[in-house]
C-alpha cells in the first residue's frame, strides 16, 4: 500500500517539480515502485523534467473524467522500470479536476505502488488543495528567502487544516526540503540561514539541496537530477532526502561539489 506524498510550497518556482522528479527517481532506483503525478493542470512540466513529454497520450484529466483507464495513462520511465508518470493535461484547467475523480485515482494508485508522489501546482487554490487532500505525508519545498518561507508557512497551515488526514484529526506528517541553498551567500547574510528557516517553519528537515547549475542541465536533458549526474552534490542531496523518506537515519550535511583551492579563489573573485 502506497504512501501518498504531496510536494508543495505555495510559492512558484522554488523547485517542486524538480524535487518531485528527483525524489521519485531516487526512490525508484532504490527498488521502490513509484508513480509521480502532475497536478499542475494547464501548466504541466513534470513530463518535461521526466523526459516523457513525447509519450503522453492520456493524462490525469482523462482518468479523472473516466475517458481513459489508469493503466492507459501511466507512462513507464525508459530508464527505471519501477518509475511511472501520470501527466497533467496542458489544454485544460484546474476546474477539470473533480473531488471524486481525484479521490478515485489516488485510491486506484495506492495498491499498485509503494510511493505516489503528487506534484502540487503553486498557489493555494483548487489544484493545490486537491493535490494535498489525500496525502499521508507532505514535503514542503522552500527557498531560503522570506517570501518563500512565508508562503510555505501558509501551506503548512492548510496541510494541518484542510487535508483528509487533518479532518480525521490525525497529525499530518510534514518535512521541509530547503532548495537552492547557497552556503556562501547564507554566511554573507544574503539569504536566510537554515536555522532561521527552521525557526519560522518548525517542521523537521528532510534535506538541503544546494544551488546548482546541474538542475537546469538536468531539466534541459529531460532527466531527474538524481539520474543525470548521480554523483553531483544536488543528486547526493536528493538521494539522502529519499533515504530519509524511507525511514533511514542519514546525517544532515550540506553536500558540496569538491572544489580546488584555485577554482575557489577564482570563483570568489568572479562573484
Amino acid at each position, binding site marked *: 500500500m502506497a504512501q501518498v506524498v504531496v510536494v508543495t510550497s505555495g510559492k512558484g518556482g522554488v523547485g517542486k517539480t524538480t524535487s518531485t522528479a528527483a525524489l521519485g527517481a531516487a526512490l525508484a532506483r532504490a527498488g521502490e515502485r513509484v508513480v509521480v503525478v502532475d497536478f499542475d493542470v494547464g501548466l504541466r512540466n513534470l513530463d518535461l523534467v521526466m523526459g516523457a513529454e513525447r509519450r503522453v497520450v492520456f493524462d490525469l484529466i482523462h482518468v479523472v473524467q473516466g475517458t481513459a483507464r489508469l493503466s492507459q495513462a501511466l507512462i513507464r520511465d525508459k530508464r527505471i522500470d519501477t518509475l511511472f508518470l501520470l501527466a497533467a493535461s496542458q489544454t485544460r484547467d484546474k476546474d477539470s479536476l473533480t473531488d471524486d475523480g481525484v479521490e478515485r485515482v489516488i485510491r486506484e494508485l495506492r495498491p499498485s505502488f509503494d510511493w505516489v508522489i503528487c506534484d502540487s501546482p503553486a498557489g*493555494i487554490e483548487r489544484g493545490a488543495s486537491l493535490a494535498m487532500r489525500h496525502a499521508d505525508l507532505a514535503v514542503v519545498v522552500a527557498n531560503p528567502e*522570506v517570501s518563500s518561507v*512565508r*508562503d510555505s*508557512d*501558509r501551506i*503548512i*497551515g*492548510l496541510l*494541518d*487544516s484542510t487535508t483528509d488526514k487533518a479532518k480525521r484529526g490525525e497529525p499530518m506528517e510534514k518535512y521541509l526540503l530547503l532548495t537552492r541553498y547557497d552556503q556562501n551567500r547564507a554566511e554573507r547574510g544574503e539569504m536566510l540561514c537554515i536555522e532561521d528557516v527552521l*525557526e*519560522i517553519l*518548525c517542521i523537521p528537515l528532510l534535506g538541503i539541496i544546494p544551488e546548482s547549475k546541474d538542475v537546469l542541465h538536468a531539466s534541459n536533458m529531460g532527466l531527474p537530477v538524481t539520474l543525470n549526474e548521480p554523483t553531483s552534490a544536488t543528486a547526493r542531496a536528493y538521494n539522502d532526502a529519499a533515504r530519509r523518506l524511507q525511514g533511514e537515519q542519514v546525517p544532515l550535511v550540506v553536500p558540496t561539489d569538491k572544489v580546488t583551492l584555485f577554482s575557489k579563489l577564482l570563483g570568489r573573485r568572479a562573484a
Partner: protein
Amino acid sequence: MSTARPSFKFRGGSFHALVVRPESPIEAWLADVDVLLARSPGFFAGKSVVIDVAGLSLTKPTFLGLLDELSRRDIRILGVEGANPADADGRVPSLVRGQADRPDPVGAPAAQTPAPAPVSSLLIDAPVRSGQAIVHPDGDVTIVGSVSSGAEIIAAGSIHVYGTLRGRVLAGAYGNQRARIFCRRLDAELIAIDGHYIVADEVEPHLRKAPIQAWLEGDELKIITMN
C-alpha cells in the same frame, strides 16, 4: 422579460454626533445655550446633534417644548436619547441608544441582555501559521509557539505568546483598555490594544527581538522589555 431595477447598496457605518445633555431647569439651560450662541453663533452649524434627556424625567409638553426651542435656534437634531417612547410622536426625531451602559428609559421594553458569558481563556499549543486567524471574543489567548508573519490573533483580553511574535495581535479588541500583550520575542507586524496600535516600523529598535509586555496608558501604547 427583464425590468430595470434600481440597485440598493447597504452598509453599516459609525458616525460621530455631538451629544447635548440639557440640564434642569430647562429654561436656565436654554439661557446658557443662548449665551454660548451669542459668543460663537456657528457652534452648532452643520453639526449632527443628539439630545440626551435621560435622567431629566421631562413631561411630554416640556420635552416637545425643548425640541421646539432648539429648532428655533437652528440646532438640527438627529436623534433623541433616553426619551420615553410614549412621548415620541411624529415630530420627534428618532430615538437612539448610544451608550450601552445606560439602563433603558422607563417604559421602554427591556432589551434582551444575554447573561455575560463566562470569561474563558484559549490555549493554542502549536505555532500559528501565516494566513491563520485566531479570534477569541471571550477572554485571553495564550500561544505556546510562534505567531508567523501573516497570522492574526484577536482577543477580548490579553494575548500571551511563548515564542516569536511575527504576525499581528489585537488585544482588548472588544473594548478592554486593561488588556495586555506579552511575548518572548517581538518581531510583530502590528500590535494593538483596544484599538490603539503601532506597526513594526514604529517599534523602537531596542525592543525588537526582545521579550516584551505592552499595555495601554491613557491613549498611549507602552512597551517595555522583560529582561
